[in-house]
């Protein structure tokens, strides 16, 4: 049991937090808590969500979020609470604003240009003569290309 004590002391140094486990009025609040903490980034750690992190600050912030949920604050209010203090960096889902237009619209632009590329190529290739090269000729051509470099390793 000496070891147990040691372990507890060791862990307690970075766990000044009160209990990690929160009681909610209903399961809806509980799910909201689980989902919200997944959306925020722990500031101290490298790249973890608030839900996953064991850092003391993350534990405190989980406590704050649980408290805000218990007070009946909306998701938006809780998000604002964190952004006011830590900036947009805490949001794993970046907000849609002028700096992130490219991030959010970019994929659509890419997809549309991709679809246009498909359409363009299909139209272009379809307008080639279907039998411009028959399979035999294709083979002949390949043979010709092969013959031009038949040298092999000794």
């Amino acid at each position, binding site marked *: 049991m000496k070891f147990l004590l040691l372990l507890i002391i060791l862990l307690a140094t970075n766990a000044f937090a009160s209990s*990690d*486990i929160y009681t909610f009025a209903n399961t809806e609040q509980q799910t909201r808590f689980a989902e919200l903490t997944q959306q925020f980034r722990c500031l101290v750690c490298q790249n973890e969500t608030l839900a996953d992190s064991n850092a003391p600050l993350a534990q405190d912030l989980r406590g704050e979020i649980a408290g805000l949920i218990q007070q009946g604050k909306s998701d938006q209010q809780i998000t604002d609470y964190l952004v006011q203090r830590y900036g947009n960096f805490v949001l*794993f889902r970046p907000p849609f604003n002028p*700096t992130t237009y490219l991030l959010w619209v970019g994929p659509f632009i890419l997809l549309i240009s991709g679809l246009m590329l498909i359409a363009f190529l299909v139209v272009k290739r379809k307008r080639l003569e279907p039998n411009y090269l028959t399979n035999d000729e294709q083979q002949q051509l390949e043979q010709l290309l092969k013959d031009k470099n038949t040298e092999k390793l000794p």
Partner: protein
Amino acid sequence: MIPELGYFALILALGMALIQAIFPLLGIWRDKMSWIVLAKPVALGQFLFLVLSFFCLIYAFVTDDFSVAYVAQNSNTQLPLLYKVAAVWGAHEGSVLLWVTILGFWTALVAVFSKKIPLQMHARVLAVLGFISSGFLLFLITTSSPFRRLLLNTPAQGIDLNPLLQDPGLASHPPMLYMGYVGFSVAFAFAIAALLTNKVDAAWARWMRPWTIAAWCFLTLGITLGSWWAYRVLGWGGWWFWDPVENASFLPWLAGTALIHSLLVTEKRGSFKSWTLLLAICVFSLSLVGTFLVRSGVLVSVHAFANDPARGKFLLLFLAVVIGCGLLLYALRAPFIKGGSYFSLLSRETFLLANNVLLIVAMTTILLGTLYPLIIDALGLGNISVGPPYFNAVFVPLMIPLLFLMGVGPLCYWREMNLKVLLMRLLYPAIIAVFLSLLLLLMTTDKIPVMVFIGLALACWVILVTVKSMLLKGWPLSFNHIGMALAHIGIAVCVIGITMTSYYKLERDVRMQPGDITTVGAYDFKFMGLTNLQGPNYTGLIADFQVTHKDQFVTLLHAQKRLYTAQQIPDTRAAIDAGIFRDLYVALGDPLNNNAWAVRIYYKPFVRWIWWGGLLMVLGGICALKNSISKRYIN
């Protein structure tokens, strides 16, 4: 002496790599046969010296030679032997050595299996590989030598390997991943050689195909192992975090998958040639960019290497030279590559084209999301984070059409297809897929979430259509076809796993005292109590949980909380009861007051299917490989 020998071997390997990079090209230019044939023996020699150097480092680890700085930082006398060996690639310097050694291995393979490749092409491929190798060896020797000695005083004890890395999943994950990353250098070299000679034909595609598939197999395996490791060791039960480092491995995977498909069109139909070349350059470039991102510290990630700006600068410069030259050559030569041949809207070419476009859009999107925080920061617009909510929101919608097309493609002819025939072929699989998934859902739950239905229906659709394609093809099937079928079914299995675990997982964070029972889903978890744990290089606690299902005993789970003695780092090892249809996962958190503990209990349905899917894909790749190797390299 041994570390110095290892360092010296590295310098010799660099010399050989330089010869391999320069002489074959000079030989082709000056028409000197003796210089051209130099490529092969030099490539083998380079590999030999790299292996020697690698074993020197292993030796330093196994013999606890703490006068070597890298060993002192990453090992400990208490460390079990397996992890002493795995510690070789546990940090930056050693993992670069692993990188270079694997590059040497691929180079040696290319040097040996070359019977049907024209000599000049072969020499050019080896020269490109030699150039890449020289760059990395120079990087290794100048900025990150793992053999550097601690000159003043040798510590009696090493610091120890990071506890998170002391796991079989991580011991095997980096070598596999690097085999994949680095393997794409062969495809890159083939592309550059083709651009240099201006010769891109079906034969070229056939030579390149097995190398690409082999690298892809390793990369797939590496990613699968990495995901499995994260699930077991990080303690959050997650299997994918969209972390920059994970994305760095996923980007070449997406581009590599696109390359395999585009290569197929180039081989069979002679189309998409310049596109295939560009992809081959891109895949390896993405591997290099990924290596840079992981090691330079420009992004914040969970798996960070120790950062050193000098390393970042060197890597970026080298990367710019390799990728820049590759793309410049492409810009100069690709316009002269002969265009493609005819295909109509309803043809396998179109579907493979759509597959490529979707994969590349997905890849670019992830690249954008990964680099966006850096771009915003570099422009002085503040700091933002781009995380899982973003990636899920943009990636999933792209995968839905991709999965749908994956079903259509294999049932379509090359060149042209009659719409009626195609629809008739697709009709029954489509109907069965919809009904089967509805039935499965109705049997288990009373409400049907749309995304689960879409996921299941698409997975069933892919499996059914793949089976149908095998039936249509008739016996005996070619290994190529079996490979395709296995890989596609692997994707479907993976999709089932992802869908089910994402929507039906149950996660409870609870406070438990010995004797408490927590119910998660249909399972009751009883906290039996704590016992002490004594490992080879850690001590800790084991929390026993008895799991029952409707009063029937299921299993006894032993969740561990370890304290690695050398660094005094606590580490959580979850207890997992693995099953075909569900995993039960218990992780012991922090102690709370009154003898209670925070406990995380997860119920993860179908989570294993994700990794089985990955293994099926690898198996598919091996099948396809068998065919193309025996056809093109051995006979």
